């Protein structure tokens, strides 16, 4: 365009100009942003802040511990009894619950048995969309598959019973390890103390969870019966059938003061907080008592940071324990992390030498530990295990740990409100350092920032190129037709959107199919696989026919190479919206998803375009594309399969991972995009 001859054209505003600048340099911007995003993610351990207790009402450690030698000796006696009883009657597994129940009743607590059968780990992709109360599962269970939780409740003497604190000690009723017996003893001593204190404002529930079917199942079953009981009752084990269970009730009639052991489910109020206590068996590293905190997230929310802070504060300042947070041990030895750590350390040193006030470097070792913890934090958010957190104590029962548990319960008891909502979004890098949501979102934002830029540049490119051709064609035609064409042109992205929608719909159907196929009776894996493949192909064909061929209509009016640009632009913006929504709900999923999806989004290009141009660059790009799709697909699919199948790699020893809705959603998202990009790659150049 010749600007010099015409009168100076009014320039755009600064913002718009900046936008145009960014869009025109989209490649550079996206490369910079992505690198910065990854770098920011790696920088997170350095940006971590020290934790502080934000809820003043918790008042940790403000009261003197009331535990005396009496509770201590009682607990030791209890542990001995449990260990000996287990040796005597090893097979039945009702001896220990009975013993625990008797002790609780002697203390004056209310006792009930909670019989459960472990739920089969069934993948249910529609769980997220269905109502919260699960349907009644009609399965015949045999007597041997039951577990018996013992639930003891202390009613707060002057409380109104609206809230409750839960204390969970998992143990295997068939074969108690010394560690489990110790954890039961620990809970018992705290429980016996709490029966006689007057400061209790919330009820205390002690759940001695029978972990013969895994540690997760009993707690989940109890929580399910607590929050969503089924009154239909067909799935409940009944004592009449199983002789063993009915024997529980016969044994100790009339021995207890006032109340019998209840058959029905006893409850207290709304659960305010829960602690899972496990005493580790391994006796390595006993130089100093250690406490490990497993902070595991559910639905993208971590346990409240104040809770962890309270434990940390009491453990470190009160009892002088060594506090650890769960981390990925494998990451500690990794070379590349070490390199990064050293780089950051040296940068920090350099900055310090420039200006002594610039203190931001942390040592390489700290960095590696922080990263390992952060990674496990992210991983747990991704896997979304049960809300659980257990300070795990090594060694024998010592008063310091009893005091710790007492202190934590007392702190929670002090709190009149629920925990503050803003303290659920964070990542831990060590027991006293955290990265808050405001910081870690920057990394994510940088990572996704290229997507809208690329989408906009692709769209404007497609629009810019076509007008010339259209103008060329329509130079002789009347203006009315021109107007119609202009409106048509501006709505052209709709057909691309339709294509994306169809492919994503197909992706959703394909992802949902395995669940329904599994419902079919008598099918071997091979047949079900065949059914799945054939049904997915059939679905694609049907969608293609019903909604019309996506490319047929478009290709008539505009050239091929423009079409894919529009399609990609729409897909990229859809991916952007999906990722942003996901990040609000579950950061870890979104972050890891972004790491996989963003490069795919930026690189994807129709194969034919690459192959037609025989330059080195084009070939390289094509190769990249193929590699990304081939690598991306399996990675995404394996994660989704891992999550969805319900058998996971859970570091904390919990055998199974619960089926979680959000992971499933992530699977959907990933499925959509993978299918869309496959489509772009293969299908679009007809």
């Amino acid at each position: 365009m010749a600007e010099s001859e015409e009168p100076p054209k009014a320039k755009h505003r600064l913002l718009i100009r900046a936008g145009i600048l960014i869009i025109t340099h989209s490649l550079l911007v996206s490369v910079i942003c992505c690198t910065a995003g990854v770098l920011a993610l790696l920088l997170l351990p350095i940006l971590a802040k020290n934790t502080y207790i934000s809820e003043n009402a918790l008042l940790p450690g403000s009261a003197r511990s009331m535990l005396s030698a009496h509770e201590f000796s009682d607990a030791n006696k209890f542990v001995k009894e449990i260990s000996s009883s287990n040796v005597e009657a090893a097979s039945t597994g009702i001896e220990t619950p009975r013993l625990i129940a008797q002790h609780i009743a002697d203390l004056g607590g209310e006792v009930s048995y909670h019989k459960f059968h472990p739920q089969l780990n069934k993948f249910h992709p529609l769980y997220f969309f269905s109502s919260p109360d699960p349907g009644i599962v009609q399965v015949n269970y045999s007597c041997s598959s039951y577990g018996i939780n013992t639930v003891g409740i202390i009613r707060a003497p002057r409380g109104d019973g609206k809230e409750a604190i839960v204390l969970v000690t998992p143990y295997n009723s068939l074969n108690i390890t010394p560690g489990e017996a110790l954890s039961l003893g620990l809970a018992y001593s705290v429980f016996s103390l709490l029966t006689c204190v007057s400061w209790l404002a919330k009820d205390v529930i002690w759940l001695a969870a029978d972990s013969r079917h895994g540690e997760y199942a009993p707690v989940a079953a109890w929580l399910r019966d607590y929050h969503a009981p089924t009154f239909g009752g067909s799935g409940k084990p009944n004592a009449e059938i199983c002789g063993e269970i009915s024997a529980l009730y016969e044994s100790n009639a009339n021995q207890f003061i006032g109340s019998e052991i209840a058959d029905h489910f006893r409850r207290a109020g709304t659960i305010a907080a829960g602690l899972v206590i496990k005493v580790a068996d391994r006796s390595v590293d006993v130089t100093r008592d250690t406490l490990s905190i497993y902070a595991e997230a559910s639905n993208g929310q971590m346990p409240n940071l104040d809770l962890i802070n309270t434990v940390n504060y009491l453990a470190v300042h009160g009892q002088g324990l060594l506090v650890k947070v769960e981390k990925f041990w494998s990451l500690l030895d990794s070379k590349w992390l070490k390199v990064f750590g050293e780089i950051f350390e040296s940068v920090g040193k350099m900055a310090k030498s420039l200006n002594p006030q610039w203190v931001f470097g942390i040592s390489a070792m700290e960095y590696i530990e922080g990263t390992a913890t952060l990674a496990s934090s992210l991983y747990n958010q991704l896997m979304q295990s049960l809300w659980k957190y257990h300070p795990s104590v090594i060694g024998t029962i010592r008063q310091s740990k009893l005091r710790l548990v007492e202190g934590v319960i007392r702190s929670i008891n002090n709190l009149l409100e629920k925990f503050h909502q803003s303290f659920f979004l964070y990542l831990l890098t060590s027991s006293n350092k955290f990265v808050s949501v405001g910081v870690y979102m920057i990394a994510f934002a940088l990572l996704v920032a290229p997507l809208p830029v690329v989408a906009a540049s692709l769209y404007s490119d497609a629009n810019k190129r076509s007008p010339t051709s259209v103008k060329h064609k329509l130079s002789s035609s009347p203006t009315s037709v021109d107007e119609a064409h202009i409106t048509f042109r501006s709505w052209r992205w709709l057909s691309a959107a339709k294509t994306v929608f169809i492919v994503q719909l197909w992706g959703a159907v394909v992802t949902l199919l395995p669940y329904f196929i599994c419902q079919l009776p008598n099918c071997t894996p091979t047949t079900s696989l065949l059914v799945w493949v054939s049904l997915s192909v059939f679905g694609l064909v049907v969608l293609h026919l019903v909604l019309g061929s996506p490319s047929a209509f478009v290709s008539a009016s505009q050239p091929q190479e423009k079409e894919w640009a529009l399609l990609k632009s729409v897909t990229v913006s859809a991916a952007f919206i999906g990722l942003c929504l996901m990040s609000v709900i579950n950061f870890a999923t979104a972050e890891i998803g972004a790491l996989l999806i963003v490069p795919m989004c930026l690189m994807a290009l129709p194969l034919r375009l690459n192959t037609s141009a025989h330059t080195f660059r084009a070939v390289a790009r094509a190769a990249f594309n193929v590699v990304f799709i081939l690598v991306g697909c399996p990675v995404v699919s394996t994660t989704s399969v891992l999550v969805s199948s319900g058998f996971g790699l859970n570091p904390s020893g919990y055998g199974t991972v619960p089926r979680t809705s959000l992971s499933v959603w992530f699977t959907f998202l990933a499925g959509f995009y993978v299918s869309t990009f496959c489509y772009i790659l293969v299908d679009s150049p007809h």
Partner: protein
Amino acid sequence: MVRLKLVLVLFILCFASTSTGKEKEGIEEQFTEELLLRPLPDRKVLAHFHFDTRAPPTASYGRHHRIFPKAIYQLRSFLGVNQNAQSAMCKNMFQASSPEQSLTASYAGNSLAIKVLNTNLALLDQVHKFQVREMELSFTQGRWNYERWGGYDPIASSNVKPPGVELWAVFDVPQDQVDASWKNLTHTLSGLFCASVNYLESSTAYSAPDWSFREFSGNLRYGTLPREAICTENLTPWLKLLPCRDKAGLSGLMNRSSIYRGFYHSQRLHLTSGEFNSEAVNYGIMLEQTLTVVLEPNTLESGVTRSSGLALQPSWSLSSLFGRELGERCVLAKSSNVYVQLEGSLVSVLKNKWEETSAYEADTLSYEEGSLSNPSFELSVSPNRIIKEVNSLHPEGSSILYHYMMENYSDSKPFELEFKWKSPLVWSCPQAPLHASRFLMGSGNERGAIAISLQATKRSDDFLVADIDEKGCRLRVDVFQVVPWYVKVYYHTLKLFVDEKPQSQADIIEKMRVSPSEDKVSPGVMELILRLPCGVKSAAITLEFDKGFLHIDEYPPDANQGFDIPSAVVSFPDFQATMHFLEDNSSNELPLVSKMKERSSVLSYTEVLLVPLTTPDFSMPYNVITITCTVFALYFGSLLNALRKRVAEEESRLKSKAAKKSGRVPLLLSKLLAKVRGKPWEPPQAASTSSSQISYKLIFKVILVAGIAAVRRGKAAEAAQEKTCYNTSTLAFSSYI
């Protein structure tokens, strides 16, 4: 001063004249004080104080009282006076020409005599408003443990109350004035008892049960405040209503620290207007004040016997329970009694024990129930009388009351009762046929469900023969539940389960009344009459609800704790918690005993529920204001800018810019650079490619350096902030320690 003296003299005169007038009538005001002690199965002791004050009808007796508390009489006298008396009083007041008349009126009205004198008309207005037939106000802390402390005896069914404040009143006014009377009543009681009873004034807080709560039609109003904290400030005004306060008599035992240390604490005030009550026709007004506490005796030796399986119940005495001795009785009291009650089941256990231990088989017949010579317990003072229950409905046995009269004791010879256990015993209290509990289902901030579950108690089979009609044996259960409006209950989702099987509503529900809640106007009320089959083991009712949103002004101060759903009332009208005692003229005069004889249906309250609702971030308005202001500023700034500039101006500016070629930023930068270098600035030469390239590089460098500096600065500031924050918090903690 002269006027005041005159007033005083007149007052004395008038008081003398009215009191002489009273004696002619024959009925006197009377006050009785009683205390019932009962050992509970779980090592605790129930203490139930019962104070009864009665005054003859105003029509025959006048408005002056020696004993009856004026505050309550004032409340009531404006309530219970029938229309004729009212109009007569009106006339008197209007014709109050002589100072004597007006003074008497004012004295009866209020201690603030002068003020009342001036506002006669206002008071008369109140007369019309306050017509309370019956009223009950209770302050409760803690929960009654129905399983351990029983729910099927007169004391439990009429004195057990839900946590917090409960108020109900029956008015004797036309329907349309009931609400106004209720509002006035709440305000009056709020002032009297230092409690936030006035929060019951709003129409969202109270309800009008039709038939399920009490058998009154129409004019009953019912409200509860589950979160009200109960403390001495509520007890002191309550004690002030007693003629001896807590200076003498049984109320002298109420050591604050010991009665508030208990596991349950409920103070109750029940006002009945005699004109409407057939049982107390002789009396114009009856005030019943009760304090029910469950205490745990201090035990030092409890730990020793714990492991042996059966623990000896802790022995107790009056002074160890209350930390005070019982000295002089209240001389104003007509009678002053202490009872020790042994429950039926305990008596039968005692009997068995006797039979086991007695060496001579023949002697078993000679065992007399309630005799003190038994191997299980010992009372340090022998009772004046033993009152036995007859015709007990409970199969376990009939209970026994040991009666002590306080006339014989004084400060110099205090009544020191000691209850000493000699052998460990296990018994259980009589329980209501079904144990009612209520809980919330579901999770999340959107919806949930309320479930009321009824579990058959152990002994319920024995007396489930109550009501047999053509449909077979049926057990009637009344349920009354009030739910605040922000918990939007869908009553059509009502589901019933009997013995874990879903049942159709028509089979079980005999009568049902539902008034759905209206947003910000009225709570939802559900009244149900269920007819359950007699052998029922468990029953459940579920109702689904949505959680509502509140306006920011409507949140209570501690909204983050959650919102309360008041207790539901579950009653069993087929079962009457009464006790029959051997007919004896003297026992008729004991108000507590006659109270136990009264028929009252078995009643139990369910738990208070806590519903976590979505709460806003209450600092949000500040953020909203800030961001709105910013947006407005930006908008108006740009608008003004656009309006102010002319097109011609813009064009000329553009032209000049085009002429200048080099932009402003490079110019500025070159200036800056010159300054940095310390050289005088030279105007740039004609635009050349090399210079522009240099300037771009410069821009990049400057931005990089500035960016790093800004980040560092910001980080340092943040770190400093964090540090101070942490320091203050640790300081706070250390100060607490």
